[in-house]
């Protein structure tokens, strides 16, 4: 059984149907990506999964129970952790304080300390900058901080929304190397990405979203090889 199961999910903005009923599933330990053009509904899907947008229809099941109507903070406590588009670091809190906020609802001090050491191991740059405020970091470092902060909640499902957005090519590379590292450690990941090639390269499976509908789904390797996907999203 899948960790995340979405059925017939619809999201409306006023009268506009941004998601017109999508089905998707992510199994424990799997890395899945959502690709698609601007306005296809990728970020809307992520926000609905995290609880930031209400579902107009359909169900979201997570770890065997329905979470469709739960508020954001309840889903976060269940282990669904969103790294929002645009990163959302706390600009006036220091790096260490940002990370501490990630573990906000946890009470196991020893576990938190161990996870802090783990994310500093994953992102040595953050340890160097632990006393600096989040707002003074570069874009790439902020993205690292956002991911590290999400990991501090010890999530079971990590939702990454456009991790490459607005970053220099070198920073994008570093971020994706880390994403691969996190995936290799067994984290379940759902990834939304503008850069379809990069996303498919780290994923096991992929969904193609178009106009609020899933038009295609397959193993990532198959999508990378598909002439249609190549023409539309990979620019080749």
């Amino acid at each position: 059984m899948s960790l995340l199961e979405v059925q017939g999910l619809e999201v409306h903005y006023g009268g506009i149907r941004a998601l017109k009923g999508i089905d998707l599933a992510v199994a424990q330990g799997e890395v899945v990506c959502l690709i698609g053009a601007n306005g296809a509904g990728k970020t809307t899907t992520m926000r609905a999964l995290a609880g930031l947008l209400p579902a107009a229809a359909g169900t979201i099941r997570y770890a065997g129970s329905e979470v469709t109507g739960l508020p954001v903070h309840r889903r976060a406590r269940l282990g669904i952790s969103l790294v929002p588009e645009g990163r959302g670091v706390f600009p006036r809190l220091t790096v260490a304080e940002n990370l501490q906020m990630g573990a906000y609802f946890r009470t196991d001090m020893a576990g938190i300390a161990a996870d802090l050491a783990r994310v500093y191991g994953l992102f040595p740059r953050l340890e160097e900058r632990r006393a600096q405020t989040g707002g003074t970091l570069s874009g790439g470092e902020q993205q690292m901080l956002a991911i590290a902060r999400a990991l501090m909640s010890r999530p079971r499902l990590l939702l990454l929304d456009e991790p490459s957005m607005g970053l220099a090519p070198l920073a994008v590379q570093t971020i994706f190397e880390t994403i691969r590292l996190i995936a290799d450690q067994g984290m379940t990941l759902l990834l939304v990405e503008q850069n379809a090639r990069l996303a498919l390269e780290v994923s096991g499976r992929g969904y193609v979203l178009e106009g609020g509908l899933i038009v295609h789904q397959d193993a990532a390797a198959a999508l990378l090889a598909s002439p249609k996907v190549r023409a539309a999203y990979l620019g080749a």
Partner: protein
Amino acid sequence: MNDLLPERCYRDPRLAWGAYAALAVLLVALPFLVDAGMGRSWVRILDFALLYVMLALGLNIVVGFAGLLDLGYVAFYAVGAYFYAILASPQLGIHLPFWALLPLGAGVACLFGVLLGAPTLRLRGDYLAIVTLGFGEIIRIFLNNLNAPVNLTNGPQGINMIDPVRIADASLRRPTEWLGVTLPGTHTHYYLFLLLTLAVIFMALRLQGSRIGRAWAAIREDEVAAEAMGINTRNLKLLAFAMGATFGGLGGGLFAAFQGFVSPESFTLMESIMILCMVVLGGMGHIPGVILGAILVTVLPELLRYIGPLQEGLLGRVLVDPADLRMLLFGLALVVVMLFRPQGLWPSPVRARELHPDNPDLIRQEQEALYDAER
């Protein structure tokens, strides 16, 4: 508060204790010094300064900690003041004891805080500011008009002859003999307010350092991200409104008992703006800064009362009415501070660093604070 004392005090605890002891002696002696040096009216101003420190610290919870812009804060002050005034005056012929009414009034103000908070949870920034502004005005207009059909507030005339604070049956407005020293009413009120102010400072400090305080900081910085961290933003925003309102209600009760008279005129929008100025001028979210801001904004305008006699002495007549100068100079001071110290006169080290990121002193301070926090 890690920046309250000079740096070397933290290396030597004896120095720190010495500094605190000196401060304590100064605070105890202050009304006598001021009385002897500047006159009784200045002790009264001192009392008001303490009252405003409490109010500013209350508003600081809402604005500085949680980042919710509240332009109607004076409403809670009014609720606390009228609650005491109505239940301890000839207005309805009810005379309940001060020590019962003070916490009750704070509680009622707290309820009003939730009442304001609940419908505004989805609003942010300017929209929230407008709604809170409206709320402040609604309360004032109610107070102005609740003299009919039942005369509850006595309308624009206000409520007079409010019962004083009583300690062991002795009115605090009358001179009190204590250990052979006769304390005038202004002095006894000073000590009462000082004790309560210290309690409020203590609570504000504990709140800021707590899990709740950290959650407020996260909400202030980025509400969506805060929610994604598992923070129940709805409850915590309500709590910020409620806590702020509680302090406001406490201040109101003290004001009514101290003054003996309340009227809607004391609770105008201008008053809300003044309290907000104390918070912003001092350094939003930084408790020592907010205290400084409250004292400055209360005390400095009073210096203007010397301007009239000064003009007469120099020019032989009053050229500019000091009352006109008050707002002009206040506005000027605000503009100057916002231009040159936008983070406030005494900001928290982290905020100050945003404008001076190369200051090595502050970097070190921050690192020390961090290691403390991690331990």
